[in-house]
């Protein structure tokens, strides 16, 4: 049920009872659907989006373009699977175009990221080359504009 998932993606703190009213379905059905989505890993996790810069926590993010040699039977998946496991890796995508994997790394410092690339990523069998791009500023993340300048301008009461 796409509409339920969209509601949860927008705000997962809404109770099943409230969602049931909003979607015009019985509350037990909504609760069962949510459980089913969780069990089937359609809902992977409920997460909070934090502006770490505003919270005063420094970290460094890099997007690394990785070229790899696909392997027989498993293609790109085996290497991707290995890269995924590192907690520093925040995102991993197989790409079309000039490189194969896009790896997003987060570290406490530039040195952390550099160490990860040189000692962990580059040394994996099948990794042919890496091209590291450091992120300078985050404007939008997970669909949220970080410093949204839009304000509420409506009158309090209007016809």
């Amino acid at each position, binding site marked *: 049920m796409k509409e339920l998932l969209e509601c949860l993606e927008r705000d997962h703190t809404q109770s099943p009872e409230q969602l049931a009213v909003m979607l015009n379905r019985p509350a037990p059905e909504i609760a069962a659907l949510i459980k089913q989505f969780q069990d089937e890993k359609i809902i992977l996790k409920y997460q909070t989006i934090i502006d770490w810069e505003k919270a005063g926590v420094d970290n460094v993010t890099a997007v690394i373009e990785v070229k790899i040699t696909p392997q027989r039977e498993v293609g790109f998946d085996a290497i991707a699977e290995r890269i995924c496991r590192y907690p520093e890796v925040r995102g991993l995508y197989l790409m079309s175009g000039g490189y194969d994997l896009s790896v997003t790394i987060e570290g406490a410092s530039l040195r952390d990221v550099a160490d990860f690339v040189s000692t962990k990523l580059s040394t994996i069998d099948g990794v042919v080359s890496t091209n590291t791009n450091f992120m300078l500023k985050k404007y939008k993340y997970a669909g949220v504009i970080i410093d949204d300048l*839009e304000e509420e301008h409506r009158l309090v*009461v209007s016809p």
Partner: protein
Amino acid sequence: MNWSERLSPTVNAIPPSGIRRFFDIAADMKGVISLGVGEPDFVTPWHIRESCIYGLHKGYTSYTSNYGLLELREEIVKSLYNDYQVTYDPRQEVLVTVGVSEALDLAMRALLSPGDEVLVPEPCYVSYKSCVTLAGGVAVTVPTSIDNQFCITADQLEAYVTPRTKVLLIGYPNNPTGAVMTREALMSIAAFAQKHDLIVISDEIYAKLTYDATHTCFSSLPDMRDRTIVLNGFSKAYAMTGWRIGYAASNADFIGAMTKIHQYTMLCTPITAQVAAIEALKRGESQVTHMVTEYNQRRRLILDGFREIGLECFEPKGAFYVFPSIKSTGLTSLEFAEQLLMSEKVALVPGNAFGDSGEGFVRCSYATSTKNITEALQRIGRFVAKF
């Protein structure tokens, strides 16, 4: 000097908007949750705003044809055909106006001679009756009630017809009640209009905000096209209230007469808004669907909330308003709204601001977040429990 003596008696006789007084109180209060806003809480979708910016870069800063940009009129005609299978000639039968408000004013001024009567079902949008009066006509109000879900019937209207009746002005989906009219119900109104040879002005600004029902454009009904002036616009569906852009569609004679007034009073609708409106019609549909889905969820939430509180509330199937009855509290609409604002800091609009038959009701807009709706309902529940 007594200035009021120098003012037109017609203007003097028009009462100030009942909403204005409320706005003045609520605007200065802190921590107010407002269910009193008659416009979307979404901002205009970015692609529409961006097209306007691009238009400015390209030098779209001039006058346009009095009728509006032809490309926009063509898109309007296309959308009316796609949505309701009604056809108009974009060159002569569509006028782009500064919101539906201007279109309504033009229509009244183009049609009415002094003393001509206009049937106006109530509760209705605040400007309807004043527009009739300002054009020299006489607004004959036809009360609707919750018993009939705030719809009108031909039988009701019959009682108000006189030899001077010239126009029927309807607005469904309705502000403030959220009522919609089915095709079958409108067919009987069409027969009534034909029987009495009336012109029908149909304000359909909330057409796209129709839930679990299908909107019927009045001019799409058999034989109604040439006696109907359809008013619509971009404010509600595309969240473009501040752009002030709407349109009228009708036969070439009516539109020609309205354009005559428009060219001498307004000249044209701002080109910036027209450029944006073209983008809205060409590529805005998915955003409209997204907004309508959210409004529908909130509609169910607020309706359920009022019923939980114990206030009688019929199910509105259009616009973004619910219109609960507050008669069980023993308060008048105004008392309810004022006391609620003062004690619980929730702003809503007393129903009598929309006509006498709105007394005993309040208009609550759900064009606000679900968090605000939930919080407002809690506060209203606390307030109502005192009675």
